[in-house]
């Protein structure tokens, strides 16, 4: 029977033969749980008992939950602080690293290293950095200059930026590599032409380099935004005594979902939060793609 198929049909048969495994995988591991989570968000379930229909109860509870709004705000602070900071930092590093010949490979490796390091290990090292004297690195340095102690992780105002810093640092290496690839793709003759036209470096940067890096910037913004909206492991590991603390000041949405599901065993409520996170991720990504897409 196979012999009688046209070339096009044979190609389709083979395409589906190879696609079958990932398609099956996606259905079982991705789409089914997603659909199931959406269903659970309208139910009450404590993981062991029966699932009972709850309608919009979980969503109403979420709307009226002050912790949710705090967490919602935190998540956006992670996003709105983390994305621009990491974007600017990684661009500045890539821009200068690209011009450097001496120890180029070694420096690139140093920047990439944190990306390969386990977030747990990193979070614990940074935790140590943040301790009070005589243990913590930063406070010891401050004390050496006679500057008063800063409580990093125990302050409701400082804790979030303190948790964000290692998360930015961890993602930097990847973004630097992507930026460098983008910079390398710009033909040198563009810069040479600008040099002959005698324009300054700032004009070259704003009129040539940045516009031509647009696709790279879009990719990094979307990619790192999704990362910051889903931030969890850094927060969890740096605030283990009181996850998301102090007073929920560092708690992101994913941590709240985890807490609700596996400490509170309120699966329906956790699923409702997940659906909200999913919606936020979708909307933010769509807005970014729309805004950054070239005219």
């Amino acid at each position, binding site marked *: 029977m196979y012999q009688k198929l046209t070339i096009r049909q044979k190609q389709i048969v083979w395409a589906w033969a190879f696609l079958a495994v990932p398609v099956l995988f996606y259905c079982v591991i991705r789409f089914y749980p997603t659909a199931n989570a959406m269903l659970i968000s309208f139910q009450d379930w404590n993981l062991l008992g029966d699932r009972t229909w709850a309608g919009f109860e979980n969503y109403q509870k979420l709307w009226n939950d002050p912790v949710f709004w705090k967490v919602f705000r935190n998540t956006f602070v992670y996003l709105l602080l983390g994305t621009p900071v990491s974007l600017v930092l990684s661009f500045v590093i890539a821009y200068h690293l690209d011009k450097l010949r001496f120890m180029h490979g070694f420096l690139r490796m140093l920047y990439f290293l944190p990306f390969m390091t386990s977030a747990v290990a990193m979070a614990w090292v940074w935790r140590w950095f943040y301790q009070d004297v005589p243990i913590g690195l930063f406070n010891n340095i401050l004390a050496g200059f006679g500057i008063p102690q800063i409580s990093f992780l125990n302050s409701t105002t400082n804790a979030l930026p303190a948790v964000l810093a290692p998360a930015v640092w961890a993602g930097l290496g990847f973004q630097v590599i992507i930026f460098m690839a983008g910079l390398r793709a710009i*033909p040198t003759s*563009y810069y*040479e032409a600008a*040099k*002959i*036209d*005698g*324009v300054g470096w700032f004009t070259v940067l704003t009129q040539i380099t940045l516009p031509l890096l647009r696709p790279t910037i879009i990719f990094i913004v979307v990619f790192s935004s999704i990362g910051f909206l889903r931030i969890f492991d850094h927060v969890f590991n740096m605030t283990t005594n009181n996850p998301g603390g102090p007073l929920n000041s560092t708690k992101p949405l994913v941590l709240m979902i985890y807490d609700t599901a596996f400490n509170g065993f309120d699966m329906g409520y956790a699923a409702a939060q997940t659906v909200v996170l999913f919606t936020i991720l979708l909307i933010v990504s769509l807005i970014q793609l729309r805004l950054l897409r*070239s005219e």
Partner: protein
Amino acid sequence: MANLALRNLTKSYGTTEVLHGITLDVADGEFVVFVGPSGCGKSTTLRMIAGLEETTSGIIEIGGREVNNLEPKERDIAMVFQNYAIYPHMSVKKNIAFGLRSSKMPKADKEKRIQEVAGILDMTDLLDRKPSQLSGGQRQRVAIGRAMVRDPAVFLFDEPLSNLDAQLRTQMRLEIKKLHQRVGNTIIFVTHDQVEAMTMADRIVIMKDGHIQQVGTPTEVFHKPANTFVARFIGAPSMNLLSGELDGTLVRLNADRQVRIPGVAAGGATNILLGVRPDDLHLDSANPILSGKVTLLEPLGAETLIYVDTPSGEIIAKADGRNPPQVGDAVQLGAAPENLHVFDSASGEALT
């Protein structure tokens, strides 16, 4: 506008010297083409004139002023690149205006200048388009436009036509030549295509391995090649080179053939290469210098190239397009003595 002078220019990368003392004078308003095979140093020389490469030693003068240590923008030059280097995210107008960005001209004057250049290049109606909406030839014109608005003393062209298809290349060749006649600036044009060099240049500079082989008008380099390299590089198909012996003004080829050459520098080497262009080598049974069997025909319409297997090796000659000999025919070939070139077979230098 200004003249340009290169004085014993050299360029080294590390310990490797790639340019070995280039000396050249270009007059004001002259169109000079640098031509040579890839790696001969022509583009490097151009980039050194532009200030994109540092000079290792020697002097570059533009308009009587030494520019070795000046930034590109201070040299009063403009350059057109092989890939045009026009910015894909800017309109044609912005691209052209980019050439004026650093100038302190009032805005109205800049606008006037852009319109003027667009008029000369016949692209006033393209000013608002993006480069992606332009054809290859139009992009090329934008690149030239960006160079023109600066009204530089010297225009530098770095193989600007090699990304175009054959037909467009011929057309742009003419356009650039007309443009030069109109604006009259000094032009340095780099190419690897000898046809471009021949058709456009006031003077051709032929380079090889970082040395200038010959400088001269197209007619000079074609009819009086300084050495075998120039002889073979300029003109298509290449000049035939036959080994022989020189005795006074008499050249003996392999067999019993011999030919008297007027004006050959007597007392030179005895082992020589006799050069004759296919255009000058015709069927001639009255005064033949070569004979052999036709192995291949290449009809070009008006004439036919014939490949002839002779005792001196395979040579190319030209026959009438209407009645060419056939493959396998025994033919006798002759050329006027004044069209023969004699080269020292050891050094390759011309002896005529």
